[in-house]
């Protein structure tokens, strides 16, 4: 077992842990306070729902951080028909 391999593995593990931990630090307050600004369908105090989405938020947190900072809501999907309809109404 070479020291370089161990050092690389340790560094990668630290990076992943750090990213997920940072995600958790962002996500816990976000899921309590900020989430309704991004998705108005989050209603009431459904604690279990908020706990369920926490692991995913810890992975995709930069996406939600950007939306929160820019004051944007979640987008609507882009399919061929939606794009065609959009370009027809705004030529």
């Amino acid at each position, binding site marked *: *077992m*070479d020291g370089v391999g161990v050092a690389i593995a340790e560094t990668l593990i630290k990076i992943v842990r750090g990213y997920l931990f940072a995600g958790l630090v962002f996500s816990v307050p976000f899921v309590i306070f900020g989430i309704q600004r991004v998705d108005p369908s989050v209603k009431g105090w*459904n604690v*279990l729902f908020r706990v*369920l989405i926490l692991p995913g938020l810890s992975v995709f947190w930069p996406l939600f951080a950007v939306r929160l900072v820019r004051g944007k809501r979640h987008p*609507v999907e882009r399919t061929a028909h939606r794009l065609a*309809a959009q370009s027809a109404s705004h030529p």
Partner: protein
Amino acid sequence: MSVGYKSIQWNRQKLIYDLILWASVAAYIAIFMAVTKGIDSNLDIRGVQIRAYGSAAFLLLHVILSIGPLSRLSPKFHPLLFNRRHMGVTMFFLALIHVVGLNLPGLPLKTTGALTWYHDFGNLDPLVSLFVGNSHYGDFIQFPFEILGVGALAIFFVMAATSHDFWLVNLTAPIWKALHMGVYVAYGLLVGHVVLGALQSNRHPAMTVAVGVGLVWIVGLHLLAGSREIKQDKATLSPSDDGFVDVGTVAEIPDNRAKVVTISGERVAVFKYDGKISAVSNVCQHQNGPLGEGKVIDGCITCPWHGYQYLPDCGASPPPFTERIPTFDVRLAGDGQGPVEDQRIFVRAIPNAPGTHVDPAVI
């Protein structure tokens, strides 16, 4: 969706589904361990749980991957499809227990995972040992199969973590689906994990045959289902000078059902109901399910996958729901002349913005 998210929207069928699923998983683990114990009562069976949980996850993955193409081949499989996500999350937890074990306070089921079993109690952090224990990264046969498992587990984690409908809305269905297509990468990694791992130690031919048959079954089923879809999508219809596409006759469409045609790079569902014709984009906003395989129930187009509903004339979900899909202008040729059933249906090639009201063509 605008009625607020629930943690899990259990209904009677979902409850039955989950009970059968979990009972089967529990039976598999229990029988696996009991049979192992029965081989020789002197045998120390600690560590065999790693195999029980690992094989359970791998088998369940085959079931999960079969449901998709089977549902394309026959709608009878839809009752297995609608709650497939619970199967996926269950499979993730089986794989997780395979790796990290199970040791919850107050729970009698305690097992050791492969990470502890093989990598702990040594002179390195088990997680570091996992990556550097076998360092033959440049070799095919000697390749560290553990890493393939780590990759698959990471994909399963992301899929399980984003399985709630919240993620469909916030990532949008096409991106969510692309992300969940990662299951095929994970399946490939797992086949490698099993072939380069367990099969190298277990030389019993039946094991190799079983993994091979599983692979042929999964690939074959997908090719079969996929080839049908490709044929349909190839038959793209082009508009005539007035911008309308001839999609066929009224007689071709059963009552409350749709004919699916491909226009403007995507499928369009042309529904016949109450003596009227309406056309909407075939793509359900929830999970991009095939609305054209749905049915008009209580005046609403109902998606065959999870039962999301849309009003046929405006492509909007009935309040309080807020989903909206693109609609298409329709007209009938030969109004008032000849048999009604021979009237041809024309759909405008350019879709209207999602939720736009369109007067249905009256037969």
